[in-house]
């Protein structure tokens, strides 16, 4: 019998949190979780995001349904559709956010869909000292862009608006009082530096306060970060629970074949774990 995360004692959960931060991710197999139990597990790590959007079940708004399934009226019940998803992480378009761990629990699998995780911390560690210094002097500006991760506009029709439109975005919604953040961050738990290369949402870059060509920076970072040796890949099977640190890693997904594929996703901080 595979050990169930629901039964983890405090020390074991703490070890798991350490593992997520050290490796960027952890995968547990053969887990048996209800929506309430996934929320319970997530809350043991820390505070969970909870919005009440179309993809959040009413009784467990901490969960976001990730699926292309539609209800009987043809309305989407989940987010992210069935297409390829560009590299992203939770809070990609924000300069400040706390929920830096994401869980993805597989309810219905698709053996032809793969999630790739790229470790931005390992990538930074292997840069030359010259590059490290230069990147440390750069700030990036992020903003929400429609179609950045996937093509929402393809199902955003005048007579049938995309449900994603109801989701809050931008500095006003998140009450941000800053308009940029360092390209190189320090993780609040382990203090290791990571590249924060939020691919689809970079709208500007500044070096020592002076605006620089962010598109050239984008191309340069792409080459340095997205290397096979920094990546791991996972095909979800029913019962798999993936936990990913959203500062040390970024992720993408290949297109979906089995439209029934369904994941439950939560995003939380580590405030209940003693490090």
């Amino acid at each position, binding site marked *: 019998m595979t050990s169930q995360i629901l039964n983890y004692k405090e020390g074991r959960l703490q070890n798991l949190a350490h593992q997520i931060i050290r490796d960027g991710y952890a995968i547990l197999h*053969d887990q048996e979780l209800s929506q309430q139990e996934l929320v319970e597990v997530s809350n043991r790590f820390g505070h969970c995001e909870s919005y009440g959007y179309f993809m959040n079940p009413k009784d467990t708004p901490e969960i976001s349904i990730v699926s292309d399934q539609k209800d009987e009226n043809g309305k989407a019940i989940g987010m992210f559709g069935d297409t390829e998803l560009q590299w992203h992480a939770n809070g990609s378009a924000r300069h400040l956010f706390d929920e830096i761990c994401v869980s993805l629990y597989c309810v219905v699998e698709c*053996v032809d869909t*793969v999630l790739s995780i790229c470790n931005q911390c390992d990538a930074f560690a292997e840069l030359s000292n010259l590059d490290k210094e230069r990147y440390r002097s750069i700030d990036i500006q992020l903003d929400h862009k429609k179609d950045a991760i996937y093509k929402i506009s393809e199902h955003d029709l005048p007579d049938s608006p995309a449900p994603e439109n109801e989701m809050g975005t931008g500095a006003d919604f998140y009450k941000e009082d800053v308009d940029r953040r360092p390209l190189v961050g320090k993780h609040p738990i382990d203090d290791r530096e990571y590249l924060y290369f939020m691919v689809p949402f970079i709208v500007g870059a500044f070096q020592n306060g002076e605006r620089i060509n962010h598109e050239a920076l984008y191309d340069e970072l792409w080459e340095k970060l997205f290397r096979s*040796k920094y990546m791991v*890949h*996972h*095909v979800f*099977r029913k019962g798999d629970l993936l936990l990913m640190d959203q500062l040390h890693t970024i992720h993408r997904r*290949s297109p979906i074949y089995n439209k029934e594929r369904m994941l439950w996703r939560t995003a939380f901080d580590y405030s209940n774990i003693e490090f």
Partner: protein
Amino acid sequence: MTIQILNSSDYELKQIARKIQLGNPVLFFEQDLTEANYIKLMKRFGECEHPNLFMNPVNHPEIFIVTGKKDKHGKKLGMFGETELGWHSNGNSRHNVDKILIGLYCVEEDENTALSICNTARPFQDLDDKLKDYYRDITIKIKFKNDTIYHLEEGDPELEFMSASKGSIRKLVDRHPHIIQQPSEYFYFPYHFIEKAWYKKKKIDVNKLIKDLKEIIFRSKYIKHHIFHKGDLLLIDQFTSLHRRTPVYNNKRLMWRIACDYRNII
């Protein structure tokens, strides 16, 4: 600088081989291989297959081109097309499978295509003794069938090549010939091609056997996944693992595949 396998000593290659034989895929990133030095590398492990078929370059017949690309006349340049490939390993339906080490080197990548590798030794080792004994007494008959791991059109030279083997009758559970000092039994389970099965001397329901074993073997904890980037070299054992591929999106994806044995390294 990333470690280049070409520079590995014989001792290091032997250690790599030991790891692969246990059913663990071994990956090298950012390798700088030509056809010639790739072949030279694999020959350090053992003897390579070189059947001189349409997918073997004339000057480097040990290489099998794996791609969905076609030439200007619409002829296939490589094997395995662009669709999903079901679970398989090299030489599944052959009577004598000896080229049990596969190298896959990525020349052109497709970031939406994944290869999954399932360890078939660990599921056996995780069984209780009673089930181990049961499966040890099972014999299977294996024969290539079209429209299982993939579809091949009539007249396709790949179909002719794949169908050429008469098939084999062998034990479901076997011992890896090169594993020493560790449990060496593994499931040989290319289930698409299993036609018949016997428990001791009695014929049994092959569909039920396959259904039961799928649940035992294809569990997420035994499976690893990889998306090839240019320069990646994957080495996998064909007894202690099975592999499958998701459909290919970028038809330019190109891999060089070599199958060899371990005779020069063990």
